[in-house]
């Protein structure tokens, strides 16, 4: 049954999903763009953000504190991960980086399963955003509407950090040529640590913000990781605007295809990714020839 209200509501749903994917993907792409590390533990960071926030919520019953706790915990975890493990892999082959981050992701998931079991955990949305909103053309969960706004603010904050601060300038310069930045007397490795922390925090923040929408299980990051990679490839590896564009495109493809035939949602997503790879191998907003 295809009707205008249904189409519009699915487009809106795609926007909500896309915004979330954009935020998670931006973390992944910043880390890759700056450090050259494809972090396969990124989905697990998303999941841990949710669980850390859940624990904080259990103690404080405050959603705001849960979001802060979830984000900061994953940022610290990211920094720790970078200092203890990842930095030893900067000059190792990509396959080593993939394997070590993949392994870390599995360890994180199993650790969470050990502590919390496989039963799903609920984090209710804040009272302000509970219920359903009548948008005139459709009814939509209020919290999902709020998520679009919250994610937009978070992406705006990331944009300011990357494009309006000295740190952001160094990061962007590091993406282009880290050797040159290093020779200018800037401690690239300290910057790398901060970048890993910020990238991880984006995933953790998304994890706890998304928790009331999906409920938490240890495996929640697995599917997101796959979608996130597709987003990064579509948008262009290492491109922050690309992550946002890719996220929105992926969200709309999944949502609109689901209206016609849900079974083909992922097929269409991967078809779109393949098309982009054929036409623009470096992604829609990726920089051609970037190392």
């Amino acid at each position: 049954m295809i009707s205008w209200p249904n189409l519009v509501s699915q487009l809106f749903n795609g926007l909500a999903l896309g915004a979330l994917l954009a935020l998670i993907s931006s973390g992944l792409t910043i880390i890759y763009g700056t450090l050259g590390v494809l972090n396969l533990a990124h989905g697990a960071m998303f999941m841990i953000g949710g669980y850390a926030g859940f624990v904080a919520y259990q103690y404080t019953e405050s959603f705001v504190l849960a979001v802060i706790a979830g984000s900061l915990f994953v940022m610290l975890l990211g920094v720790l991960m970078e200092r203890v493990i990842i930095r030893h892999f900067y000059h190792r082959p990509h396959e080593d980086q993939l394997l070590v981050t993949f392994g870390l992701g599995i360890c994180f998931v199993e650790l969470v399963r050990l502590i919390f079991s496989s039963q799903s955990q609920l984090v209710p949305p804040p009272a302000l955003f509970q219920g359903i909103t009548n948008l005139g053309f459709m009814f939509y969960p209020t919290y999902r509407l709020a998520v679009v706004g919250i994610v937009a603010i978070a992406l705006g904050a990331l944009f300011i950090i990357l494009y309006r601060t000295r740190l952001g300038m160094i990061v962007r310069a590091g993406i282009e040529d880290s050797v040159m930045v290093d020779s200018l007397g800037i401690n690239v490795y300290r910057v790398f640590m901060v970048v890993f922390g910020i990238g991880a925090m984006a995933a953790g923040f998304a994890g706890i913000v998304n928790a009331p929408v999906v409920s938490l299980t240890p495996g929640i990051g697995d599917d997101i990781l796959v979608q996130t990679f597709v987003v990064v490839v579509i948008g262009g590896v290492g491109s922050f605007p690309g992550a946002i564009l890719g996220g929105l495109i992926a969200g709309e493809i999944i949502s609109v295809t689901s209206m016609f035939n849900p079974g083909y949602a992922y097929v269409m997503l991967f078809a779109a990714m393949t098309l982009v790879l054929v036409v623009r191998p470096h992604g829609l907003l990726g920089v051609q020839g970037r190392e």
Partner: protein
Amino acid sequence: MTDDLIRRGLSRRGLLQTTAGLIGGSMLPAMPAFAEDKPIGSYPAGVSGSTAFIGISVPRTGTYAVQGEDELKGYQLAIEHINSGHDLIKKISPKTSKGVLGKELKFGVADSAAKPNEAVQAQQRFISENKAIMITGGTSSAVAVALNKLAQREHVLFVCGISGSNDTTGKDCVRYGFRQNFFGQTAAAAIGPVMVREFGKGKKAAYLTPDYTYGHTVTKSMQDFLATAGWTTVTNQVAPLGAPDYSSYLLNVANSGADVLINVNWGHDAVLSTQQAKQFGVLDKMKLVVPYQVPFIARETGGLMQGVYAATDYWWTIEDKFPLAKMFNEAFEKKYGYKPEWGAENAYVSFAHWARMCEQAGSFNPPDVIKAYEKGETIPSLVGDVHYRPEDHQCVRPVIIVKGKQQKDMKNKEDWYDVVEIVKGEGLMQKPDAFGCHPGDYS
């Protein structure tokens, strides 16, 4: 006899071994009967010592992990009870003293992640390396169907775990496979009349269906049954197993104009889709029915099953009607600290029945054990007397209809459901060949 053996394809080496065995057997009259049997599958190699090995594959990760863990606990309790000759096991399998036929049961556990290929690989390993005499698994009918085929090929008994698809003992049935829990069709036949009585005739239904054998057969069964009461399907949203988000499907449901949402999803998929149905206001617009109840869904959805009808294999409060259920609940809760859900009950009873059949056959020899099942005798279970149909190896057992309790009526934190009806299995079951069951050979 020699010609006969050779005609059956026995090798010269095998013939010599068999002959030696037969001579040895005649010299040792006290040896158990199975020493004289022809080797088949992992028999008699798997039971030549003092133990017998069982291969268990349950999902411990993925969307069915919670149910898989519950199922595993049921298996473990059954093995513990069989090995110790517990009173409850004796009620189901009176000849069991310690172990099965005096053999202590050992087991290995593999995580199937509800994926058929992973379950088959694990069980293949248990059969070849541990000489598993029986294998089990499920919690996904796709896994059950795959293990059916493996069991038939390897001539090792498959005692099915959780599997609600019509195909399991229908078109994909095998001689070496047995199932204790009921068909999706049986669930539909049990809950359908309750739905018609509760909601009326000529209603519009929307379905959420997981995209594999279980989902399709349960949805089809519900559609077929409800069509007889003039119900129509306004939308059937088919989602992949483990879908991360149901919002797109639910928007289609919300815009479908349905009166009732029939959620066929299972495991975490059911929990997530039900929670999101609430978020999208779907549950305010239409009634929810879960035709094949999902263990733990009431607690995981935080009360969204209140007033919702579901068909289930077991709910612990039936203990006031069935003494064996009471014994099981007490033993299970003592060991694991919570009331068992139907995955655990299903697992426990499946193993208890297998032990009974082996004891009755007096042997682990698969064809003999199969024939013991195929006698179709009435035997005890936790939900009263049941029997296995010889034609399709399906257990004929009651279906329990439950309705979610309102929070104010809950007597304790696990008192989630009222038992509305216990519907006898005989009247619900389709004919054994209705889904095209043609079991294979004994050897």
